[in-house]
């Protein structure tokens, strides 16, 4: 036993790597090189090479190879005995480490679960709104941020932090969501940008279809510009349908020759009310409710109006846009198309992708590293466009 103990006494023997041990265990368990190679997704020569390397490093033969079969030598037997548990605990350790990622995904799923359930069993609008607010309430509000109710040019709004420079238009498909529910996300963005955010409670459909939301966003924008003294001191931000509303606001400002803000941050934009750009989903998905959302918001208004379908608009002359999206978000083609179109039309538009599938993953900034990073990047962009504009204003003045 002491001999075999010695063999295993060098698990960290210089040069012995985990893959050598895995190769050995696979061959020892299968007693067949081609099956073991298949199991490891290795070519047979690569597998043989690894076994030979291991034998050289350990200093003895571990396997007897004959034309018809593979057998373990006593040394091989001893090594197998002691290696298997090592690999199992190593795999467990790695799984535990990786589940830090998996755990986060599970946490997001738990928070979203009530909304996901709605995709399978649709409820009344009233219940859906309640569930959405409940979900939003699961995410924390950044500490030390002041929240005040303000009347922003006739639109009731929350002012998060001091001296807001960000006009935040919340998501929720024009039918759900509130300034109150979005205190966590808008507050986190404001905190990251070391600024304040104004979050209007724009009127929701179906009670108030288009253009009520846009009118309210416009009123809040004018109020904020007035407060800041300069439109270039204001940055728009919005998530999902709030990003579409931000673009609609920019298009309306352009059409009315009103001053533009310094830029816009568009988090996981959801821009296409027809739903035809969504990547397919195997399971029932909230985004499949887009037709009901569209009907509620449009209430007969033509869907090809750029103010409701900004991807159809002429984007030239818009200020810099930062577009963020999760790589596997079903609405990702909309983010791609927006960036592409804006870029073609001469707008400074940047697309930032983040790993994951979650629409508006930024909501989970308090525990999801990608979300915290995304908000930090958005804050950098906000800093940059505000600084650029004050620099331009200085040189102009």
């Amino acid at each position, binding site marked *: 036993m002491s001999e075999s103990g010695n063999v295993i006494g060098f698990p960290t023997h210089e040069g012995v790597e985990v*893959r050598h041990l895995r190769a050995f265990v696979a061959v020892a368990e299968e007693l067949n090189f081609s099956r073991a190679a298949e199991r490891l997704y*290795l070519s047979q020569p*690569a597998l043989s090479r690894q076994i030979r390397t291991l034998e050289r490093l350990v200093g003895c033969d571990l396997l007897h190879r004959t034309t018809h079969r593979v057998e373990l030598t006593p040394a091989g037997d001893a090594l197998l005995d002691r290696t298997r548990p090592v690999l199992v605990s190593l795999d467990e350790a790695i799984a535990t480490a990786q589940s830090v990622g998996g755990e986060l995904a599970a946490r997001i799923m738990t928070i979203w679960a009530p909304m996901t359930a709605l995709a399978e069993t649709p409820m009344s609008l009233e219940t859906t709104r309640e569930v959405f607010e409940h979900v939003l309430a699961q995410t924390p509000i950044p500490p030390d941020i002041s929240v005040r109710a303000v009347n922003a040019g006739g639109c009731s709004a929350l002012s998060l932090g001091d001296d807001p420079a960000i006009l935040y238009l919340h998501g929720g498909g024009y039918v759900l969501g509130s300034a109150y529910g979005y205190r966590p996300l808008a507050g986190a963005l404001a905190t990251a940008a070391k600024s304040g955010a104004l979050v209007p409670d724009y009127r929701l459909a179906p009670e108030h279809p288009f253009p009520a939301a846009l009118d309210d966003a416009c009123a809040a924008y004018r109020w904020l510009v007035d407060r800041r003294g300069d439109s270039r001191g204001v940055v728009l931000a919005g998530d999902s349908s709030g990003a579409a509303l931000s673009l609609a606001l920019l298009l309306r400002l352009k059409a009315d020759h009103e001053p533009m803000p310094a830029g816009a941050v568009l988090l996981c934009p959801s821009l296409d009310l027809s739903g035809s750009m969504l990547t397919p989903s195997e399971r029932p998905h909230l985004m499949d409710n887009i037709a009901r959302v569209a009907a509620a918001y449009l209430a007969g208004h033509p869907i090809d109006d750029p103010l409701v379908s900004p991807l159809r608009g002429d984007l030239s002359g818009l200020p810099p846009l930062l577009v963020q999206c999760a790589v596997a978000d079903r609405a990702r083609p909309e983010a791609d198309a927006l960036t592409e179109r804006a870029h073609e039309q001469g707008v400074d538009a940047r*697309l*930032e*992708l983040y790993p994951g599938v979650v629409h508006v993953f930024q909501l989970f900034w308090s525990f999801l590293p990608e979300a915290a990073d995304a908000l930090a990047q958005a804050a950098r962009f906000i800093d940059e466009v505000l600084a650029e504009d004050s620099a331009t204003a200085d040189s102009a003045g």
Partner: protein
Amino acid sequence: MPLRAPTTLRLRSPDGPLRIHLAQPLSRSTLSVLVLITDADPPQICRALADELTILTIATERATLRDGTRLLEWTADHATELGADPDQLLLGGAHAGAWLAAYLALRARDDGWPVIRHQLLVHPRRFPAIAMSTSLTGAPPATIIGPPTASHSYAHQLRLAGVAVTVTAWLSRTSHADERT
């Protein structure tokens, strides 16, 4: 082929978020994907290669083994989400990143994953360590771009190991004017 608007991807890593540059040809078909390890003007070289080769090119910003490994492994797992074919994975390195790419290609060969269809070594600086210590048999076919002198020994050893190698002075549009002389 014209390219889509510049895109960045931010990947979680133990050293903090990695900024990754993406250059996508405007193509409706599924593209091959080139993972490029480089620290020399990544956006420019990334776009030049994507344009030249009509391939989705995804580049690190630093030429480190850690960043290269992270990007290669992430891309092998998620190429489909980027609209690329995970079975058509190429690995490349430019300048200081070239030998890291060569090394990672060998490591992938040993591990059996991910399967690298081709290695592209752009303007390699040096290769001694790997060339001397490891068998090159079974390494992915290689294209080495750069002045012959720097790449000769590695190209030679790859050929001795039975690996198909193309050495070319420069792809037509990937050059930096100052390095061409």
